[in-house]
């Protein structure tokens, strides 16, 4: 069995900022494929996620939606969102399985200042190590999908870890295992891409002319992908149209950080050179 816990990138270490192409190996990469058209809205995946990961149950109230909770939390890593949207004169649920997409270029990992608090395994799964988390929540800001959630009690951030303990044991994630309609599939990234293309073809034959695969290039692709029946209405699914995260091109902040190193060193050296040129100005000598 392949080693599923070998690490490709680690936050706040040089590996975090190496472009993906330089890091890719022959190690198998996994992906989860969510075919929204097959989802019947049973929320079994939410329950399976809670059970397997032993996440605290959070009481909820009816707030006028079929949705179980209003938002993700540190104890709710998976939330089926039921967006009620008018499509061709009918009200439809445009369902989104809201959980970590496990980006190839993870914005959370790039933003994290704590070494080893966020890792990306060679299989593509992005995992938070709470024992290294310092609770700054930069990952929350860095995530283009608004997924990580801060726990005020533990002062650490959590999110879906793709049931990495199950993956390591050769099993599929709990949500995949429990889905009664096979709306969630699990396998190698290539297989899932092929399956996604096939399903998009099927949907197009059935009249969903804008059906598409959601595997956004701005984050290098993801390890949870969606088959979206109404691919022209990503906003209505609460899916960002063009999410981006990148270790490569200089952002304003990373440019400033490099400039600051130069400026600080320059000014320290500058004062030293000034001292050597002009010396200390002793009061006695002046008069």
């Amino acid at each position, binding site marked *: 069995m392949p080693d599923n816990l070998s690490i490709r990138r680690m936050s706040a270490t040089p590996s975090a900022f190496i472009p993906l192409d330089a890091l890719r190996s022959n190690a198998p990469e996994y992906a989860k494929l969510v075919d929204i058209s097959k989802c019947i809205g049973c929320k079994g995946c939410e329950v399976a996620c809670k059970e397997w990961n032993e996440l605290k149950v959070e009481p909820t109230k009816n707030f006028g939606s079929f949705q179980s909770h209003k938002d993700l939390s540190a104890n709710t890593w998976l939330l089926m969102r039921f967006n009620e949207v008018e499509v061709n004169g009918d009200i439809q649920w445009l369902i989104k399985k809201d959980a970590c997409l496990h980006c190839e270029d993870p914005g959370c990992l790039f933003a994290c*200042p704590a070494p080893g608090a966020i890792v990306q395994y060679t299989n593509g799964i992005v995992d938070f190590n709470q024992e290294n988390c310092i*609770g700054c929540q930069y990952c929350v*800001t860095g*995530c283009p999908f608004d997924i990580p959630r801060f726990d005020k009690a533990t*002062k650490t951030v959590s999110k879906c870890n793709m049931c990495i303990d199950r993956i390591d044991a050769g099993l599929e994630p709990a949500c995949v295992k429990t889905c009664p309609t096979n709306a969630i599939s699990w396998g190698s990234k290539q297989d899932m891409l092929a399956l996604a293309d096939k399903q998009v073809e099927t949907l197009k034959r059935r009249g969903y002319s804008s059906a598409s695969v959601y595997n956004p290039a701005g984050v290098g692709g993801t390890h949870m992908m969606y088959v979206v029946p109404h691919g022209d209405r990503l906003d209505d699914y609460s899916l960002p149209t063009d999410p981006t995260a990148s270790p490569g091109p200089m952002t304003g902040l990373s440019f*400033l950080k490099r400039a600051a190193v130069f400026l*600080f060193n320059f*000014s320290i050296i500058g004062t030293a050179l000034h001292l050597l040129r002009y010396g200390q100005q002793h009061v*006695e000598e002046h008069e």
Partner: protein
Amino acid sequence: MSSNGLLHRFTYLERVVHWVVGGTFVALLVTGLALSYPSLFWLTSLVGGGPAARVLHPWVGAVFGLSMVCMLALWIREMFLDHDDWRWLGAIKDYVTRNHDKVPRAGKYNAGQKVFFWVQGGLAVVFVATGLALWMPEWFEPGLLATARLLHFAATVGGGLFLIVHVYLGVVAYPGTARGMIDGKVTRRWASMHHPRWYEDQS
């Protein structure tokens, strides 16, 4: 005025406020740089590790912000630039190269110190405003937080550079200066040399 050729330069309150500002600023610089540069993350161990640095930084920042308010209240009236100060800034090259005859005579504070005061005051506003957002990110939009991080760091660069120059001039380049911030006294000779207009007022 005092005996032994010493002049009172800073009151006890001024010294306390100065060192609260200075001490908190250095503590903030150390913990902040640790969280900005992975290679400096080890600095967090000085305060007890990463989570401790994350928790302490904003609280120390709050003390810094309050002490900056006190500092502004204490010194603002003395810090407005007059005509001679602008001439002083025009002759800054002569100040750096020690052509003292060409540098306009300074009052209690020279124009460089006054500019330092205003810049640090402005940066403090940036630090506190953006720091508040980074302290409680759940209250703010992610886009705003990214800008806040950028501005917070930009302020660090500005403040850090001023700090280097401030320490160099006060401790290394001009012996006798730092004492004014320790027991509050400076020698008459020091005053007549560095702040002649103030010295004349004292006589």
